[in-house]
């Protein structure tokens, strides 16, 4: 296996054309921090786009950023910070969770895995922020889709399709993203000692109020105990975040603090709040606990029932229950039949995120698709990559 480093889109296209001519396959990678996510892939060569890096155009007043796909997230975040802006989807750093170093992810990898943080239920995922892109398809052609303005409906929305496609539709080479002003202030209200079902009921109620909360999470005690200082107690931690204009955040946080005062509510401000949400997004507390980790995206109301039926050793709930990370004992069967069945029963979507290569190969990673969606998935894959050059099998058998 050789690694092909490409420095521009044409070299990426050349590499694909060479693979087509030789009948070989390519792993598409940025800086390889999420290799543990998805089904293990064995290919003839690696197409590495991490040298395809740099800013093409950043226009803070247009809320637009265009960069090459291999640009490190740290570079992007630094550039945005200088203009007091952010990526709306609050990209967490999953490097350490998947056994890679931190602060190494690229924007291309974040988009390919559609990695979004705690704010997603409010401001969307990469799929909501990617406005346009250039890429190389499995015909060895460089093409583009979408646009470089924040509002555009010209042609099919292929940017959506590229997000969460795990490189199976080909390497992105250039991406245009929508950015947002950074919130002026953030405050978090925390509550201790609630059971998960009670916490989830409370979080759903807050989500249904016009309070504009941007973080609605609950950690079971097994995870919360790893937090520093006074937060590190082995009981459930429920957290509600507000971000925005100073006056609005103060008003809302004060109202909630008053409401839950008798329940022992406390307010976390500034850096303490930021740190907590960074650790929730980055799955930092799950890194400390060994075992299998399943991610379940669910209708929020079903979260408590799903967790009850699966019975995890520890759980992190986000998006008011719309997202769960469930920690289970390591076992050869990965609890796959149980988790898949419970997820299916509640119209939820399970992903086996932390397990050995053997387990991920044996049980698959993503929620199995019904026959119709599986057919569309195959046909869409073939529309971009009929010869199966890119990341074969990363998502599903043959995809």
């Amino acid at each position: 296996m050789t690694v092909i480093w490409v420095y521009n889109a044409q070299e990426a296209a050349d590499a694909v054309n060479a693979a087509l001519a030789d009948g070989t396959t390519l792993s598409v990678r940025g800086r390889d921090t999420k290799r543990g996510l998805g089904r293990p892939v064995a290919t003839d060569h690696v197409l590495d786009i991490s040298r395809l890096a740099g800013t093409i155009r950043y226009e803070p007043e247009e809320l637009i950023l265009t960069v090459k796909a291999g640009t490190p997230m740290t570079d992007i975040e630094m550039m945005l910070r200088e203009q007091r802006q952010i990526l709306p989807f609050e990209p967490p750093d999953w490097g350490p969770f998947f056994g890679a170093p931190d602060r190494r992810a690229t924007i291309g990898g974040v988009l390919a895995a559609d990695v979004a943080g705690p704010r997603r239920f409010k401001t969307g995922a990469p799929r909501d922020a990617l406005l346009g892109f250039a890429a190389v398809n499995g015909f060895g052609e460089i093409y583009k889709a979408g646009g470089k303005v924040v509002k555009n409906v010209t042609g099919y929305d292929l940017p959506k399709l590229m997000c969460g496609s795990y490189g199976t539709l080909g390497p992105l080479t250039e991406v245009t993203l929508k950015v947002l002003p950074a919130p002026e202030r953030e405050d978090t209200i925390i509550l201790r000692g609630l059971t998960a079902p009670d916490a989830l009921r409370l979080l759903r109620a807050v989500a249904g109020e016009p309070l504009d909360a941007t973080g609605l999470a609950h950690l079971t005690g097994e995870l919360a105990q790893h937090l520093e200082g006074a937060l590190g107690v082995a009981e459930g931690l429920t957290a509600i975040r507000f971000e925005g204009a100073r006056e609005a955040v103060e008003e809302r946080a004060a109202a909630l603090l008053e409401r839950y005062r008798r329940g022992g509510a406390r307010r976390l401000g500034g850096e303490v709040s930021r740190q907590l949400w960074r650790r929730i997004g980055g799955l930092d507390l799950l890194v400390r606990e060994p075992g299998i980790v399943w991610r379940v995206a669910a209708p929020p109301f079903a979260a408590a029932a799903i967790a009850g039926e699966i019975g995890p050793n520890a759980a992190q709930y986000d998006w008011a229950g719309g997202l769960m990370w469930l920690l289970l004992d390591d076992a050869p069967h990965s609890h796959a039949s149980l988790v898949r069945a419970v997820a299916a029963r509640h119209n939820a979507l399970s992903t086996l995120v932390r397990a050995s290569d053997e387990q991920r190969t044996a049980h698959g990673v993503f929620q199995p698709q019904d026959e119709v969606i599986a057919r569309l998935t195959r046909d869409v894959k073939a529309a971009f990559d009929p010869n199966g050059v890119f990341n074969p099998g990363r998502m599903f058998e043959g995809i």
Partner: protein
Amino acid sequence: MHLPPPDLSIVARRADIVAGLRALLPDGAVIADDESLAVYDCDALTAIRQKPLCAVLPGTTEEVAAILAFCRDCGVNVVPRGAGTSLSGGAIPLGDGILLVMAKLNRVLDIDYENRCVVVQPGVTNLAITKAVEERGFYYAPDPSSQIACSIGGNVAENSGGVHCLKYGLTTNNLLGVEMVLIDGTVARIGGKCGAPSGYDLLGLVTGSEGLLGVVTEVTVRILPKPPLARAMLIGFPSIAAAGEAVAAIIAAGIIPAGLELMDRISVGAMEAFCAPGYPLDAEAVLIAELDGTAVEVDTLIACVEAVALRAGATSCRASGSEAERLKIWAGRKAAFAATGRIAPDMLCMDGTIPRRELASVLERIAEMSRACGLPVANVFHAGDGNLHPLILYDVMKPGDLEKAETFGNDILRLCVEVGGVLTGEHGVGIEKRDLMPAMFDAEDLAQQQRVKCAFDPTHRLNPGKVFPTLHACAELGRVHIHGGAFRHPELPRL
């Protein structure tokens, strides 16, 4: 702008096709008499009229599936239609195709407050979703100006926006799932009530696909708690450039208003004459900024926007003091179409998006073109996201006027793409901008899109002749054509 020539071999089989569909469906579901079909001969792009082979009104998903499978097997084209309010001709019938009218599928199926979503059939109007949940303090965010009539199925097909989409997103950002029937009659359930997809984002792909990939038979949308308060500001500027600077400065100050709309002097004059919303008539440009949130938050934001606007040279600035006053401020803007229609016999409406920094220079170039061709133009502009709607005023009875207007419109759209923008911000490509696609996309770009089309509809039975240019690309460019003042749905707020 023209429809593809009808396949006469299909047209010749019309009686058999109608009989075949009638055999599949309940009585009254197939409309084939000439007089009744006249109702369906166009959508809101009235420049082209064409009666379909017949109109078919299914009442269930199963009926939709049976109709599509029949059409696939018999080689008949299908044009899906929601409420027929498309401004780009997305629902214009074809002479060799049936018109699949989704109006009977108009029920709200499930209001789920616990999961903050609503499941509806595609014929439910956009506004009806908000009406169904407002008693509990919720609403559906995307609000195209035609929301009292346009259907949610059509919104999904067009990825509709609205004046609040800068802050709250387009249809695609507020959609959780659809049920969609494919051309072979297969029913696909894409997404559901989960906030994150798994596998390829087919939901994102089919949203805005303009009826070319499948027919949506059920829609699940996210609903949001209504902000406690919204207030609108009316700000006058001595020049478009000053107003443009104010918009950039508001965003640079870290404020994303719920709505940010700019109107030029000619539009303001027309709206004031139409419904007297109280706009300043001495200003060259008027900005509406809407701020929402809690009372304290809104007060703070209004003070900040006012300070920014005054620094940019605003000559007047006031904020609504009541809900009635806020709605009055919006009434003028939402009546842009009807108001402008009253000051000229005919008009063409464009829908390009430009980078906002180009606003002053683009409007200056449009003004130059206007002087050169002798046709006035009114400009309304979704200023926050750069979506420009120039309304070209002309008189079709004057020889040469229509051609001049079309050329003018072509030049405007070329300009949008030239300065880094796009052909359509919210109206869709449809038939009106189809032949202009090569101005924005290279052959490889279009080929990739068409391969995706083939994955869903390999025989090109769904809405053929829309979105993708034919081999006979002509210089027809994007616009909404309103003829003789008698445009369709004149009562609807627009843009």
